[in-house]
């Protein structure tokens, strides 16, 4: 009597075949991940990061990929929420089997992911979030690298600028009430102390605050002559709008929060008053490499029509260089194992990048590739970020 295969047996055979076939398929490409805010007020920043990473990825694949395989990018939206960011990081490492992953816009999210990256021994490369403790996290084996600004260094640059440009003698701070605000509170305090400049007051506010007039009034009454601002696009816009309502015309020296979105539109006509820090700009005098990258960008993304669409340049530039540096590390390591890639990061000796020419960008005591000499000051004009010429 012939034995007929039951439906159940067929199902389990198919399932078994698929189960074993799928991981095999994953081995034919090298996967790199990205956890970033891709929606909400920082959506434009996330978009810039994806573009920068993708552009560099195309170049790497055009030259044969890495370790003989094509490289692909897997993205996840953390919605600026630390818990969702950690879940996304886990998913990328454990289910998508990424070899390394890039970190996004928000400091609180990156800070939450850092312990997981170190524990999983998978390199985590920051391309925007500037919280000092992200790379300076005290881990014995630190898997967190960064091609971006560092709050401690940014704060020194902000204080220098306020003194040089506005002759600040009693600056005040208006800071967002989260880990990023705290990181900068510490940095600004120590930068001011180093220059022996007293501060007038420190005020905090929340992302959903419609009205920042109370805090700003207290700052004004304390004798503030220059205002340091640290907040993302939407809350920064509320500060500018509140200042307009109060009729207080105080110079504003800011971290790069406004760069993350449509600041000109949200803050209104006073937007150009805010001077903020960047690591790169496609406007102004462009290097040859910058011109090449800009042309490639416009070609790959026809939606880019004016310079205002290339904003924020920081996301594109940081991500572009970070992707190339990571690729260099993987190539040097000759393997996809986390510890080997980490060791290879330290062995990168020189790389001609978009933001600058990197010489030994990473060492075990300093895993930040950019320093304060790479910062520039910019402002928003009609939706475009332009460098300020001092």
């Amino acid at each position, binding site marked *: 009597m012939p034995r007929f295969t039951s439906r159940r047996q067929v199902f389990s055979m198919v399932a078994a075949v698929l189960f074993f076939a799928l991981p095999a398929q994953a081995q034919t490409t090298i996967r790199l991940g990205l956890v970033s805010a*891709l*929606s*909400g*007020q920082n*959506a*434009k920043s996330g978009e810039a990061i994806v573009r920068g990473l993708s552009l560099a990825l195309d170049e790497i694949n055009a030259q044969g990929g890495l370790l003989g395989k094509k490289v692909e990018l897997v993205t996840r939206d953390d919605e600026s929420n630390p818990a969702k960011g950690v879940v996304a990081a886990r998913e990328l490492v454990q289910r998508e089997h990424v070899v390394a992953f890039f970190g996004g816009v928000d400091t609180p999210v990156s800070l939450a992911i850092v312990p997981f990256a170190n524990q999983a021994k998978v390199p985590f490369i920051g391309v925007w979030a500037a919280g000092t403790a992200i790379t300076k996290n005290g881990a014995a084996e630190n898997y967190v690298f960064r091609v971006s600004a560092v709050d401690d260094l940014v704060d020194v640059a902000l204080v220098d600028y306020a003194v040089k440009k506005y002759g600040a003698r009693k600056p005040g701070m208006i800071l967002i*009430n989260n880990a990023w605000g705290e990181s900068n509170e510490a940095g600004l305090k120590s930068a001011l102390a180093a220059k022996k400049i007293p501060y007038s007051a420190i*005020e*905090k*506010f*929340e992302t*959903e*605050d*419609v*009205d920042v*007039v*109370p*805090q700003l*009034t*207290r700052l004004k009454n304390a004798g503030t002559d220059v205002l340091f601002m640290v907040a993302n*696009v*939407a809350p920064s*816009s*509320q500060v500018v709008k509140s200042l*307009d*309502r*109060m*009729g207080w015309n105080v110079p504003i020296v800011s971290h790069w929060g406004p760069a993350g*979105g*449509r600041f000109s*539109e*949200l803050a*209104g006509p006073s937007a150009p008053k805010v001077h903020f820090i960047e690591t790169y700009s496609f406007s102004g005098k462009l290097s040859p490499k910058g011109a090449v990258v800009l042309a490639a960008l416009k070609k790959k993304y026809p939606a880019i029509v004016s310079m205002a669409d290339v904003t924020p340049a920081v996301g594109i530039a940081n991500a572009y260089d970070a992707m190339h540096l990571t690729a260099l590390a993987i190539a040097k390591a000759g393997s996809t194992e986390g510890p080997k890639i980490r060791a290879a990061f330290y062995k990168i000796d020189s790389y001609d990048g978009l933001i600058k020419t990197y010489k030994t960008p990473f060492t075990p005591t300093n895993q930040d590739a950019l320093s304060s000499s790479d910062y520039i000051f910019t402002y928003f004009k009609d939706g475009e970020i332009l460098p300020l010429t001092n």
Partner: protein
Amino acid sequence: MLLISAIISGLSLGSMYGLIALGFHVTYVVSNTVNFSQGSAMMLGAVLGYIFSVTLGWPLPIAAILALALCGLFGLAVERILVRPFAERNSNAWLMATVAGGIVLDNIILFTFGKEPRNFPSALAVKPVQLFGAGVYVLQLVIPVVGLAVALLLQAAFHHTRTGKSLLAVVQNRDAARLMGIDVRRAIAGSFALSTALAGLAGLLIAPLFSVQSDMGTLFGIKAFAVAILGGMNSAWGVVLAGLAYGAFEALVTAYFGSTYTQIAAFSIVILALAIMPNGLLGRRAVNKV
């Protein structure tokens, strides 16, 4: 100067809470159900107002009326799909269903309208006027006036027009109302449409002071519900007054202590007030006839 600015700001935000809370009140007095997607309806009003007046460039009055009409339609949809199937079977699942409905709407708007906050310009929020030494936008003064006017109109409509009285009759005794020829289902549907339109109006009013984005309604919805409970769910005046009081309290706490503790202080006051007056400021004890 700080005090004046804080109070004006608090009154305008408080009127927002009051308008949204009026929506809670309206559906509660007519059908003993509450639409927990009110916050999302508020967002819908702002988003639609933006699309019609900014993206499509239509004149503001037309854009506003159209936006409010569509918000009302949303309310009808909520009542028909998320509330009626459960309420008519004496189930409380409409609680979760309306919460879910709000989340679904937020996400639909997220994917269609866009992922970033946008600016809603208003002629009333361009140049500030000086009032007792504080700079305020004309819009901030207009908002509480609108809120109070709406509450007055509603109160008058409920007690002095036929439609209003029939709406009140429905909650007093549903079967008797039906016997008297009142279309109960239409009354309840109408109350939902009215409640979401009120929320949409709040969204349209606050948008120029803030920004338009898909998740702007969540916090407002929660606070408005607290305000509705505080004011007594069955009193329109109570709800509006509670909204104004809550907004003013929030603003004063922020003015003197900063915004970090505002949420804790405000919600603690709500709990305290309810502990002292369990039916809300102007509410009446619900009588259960057996």
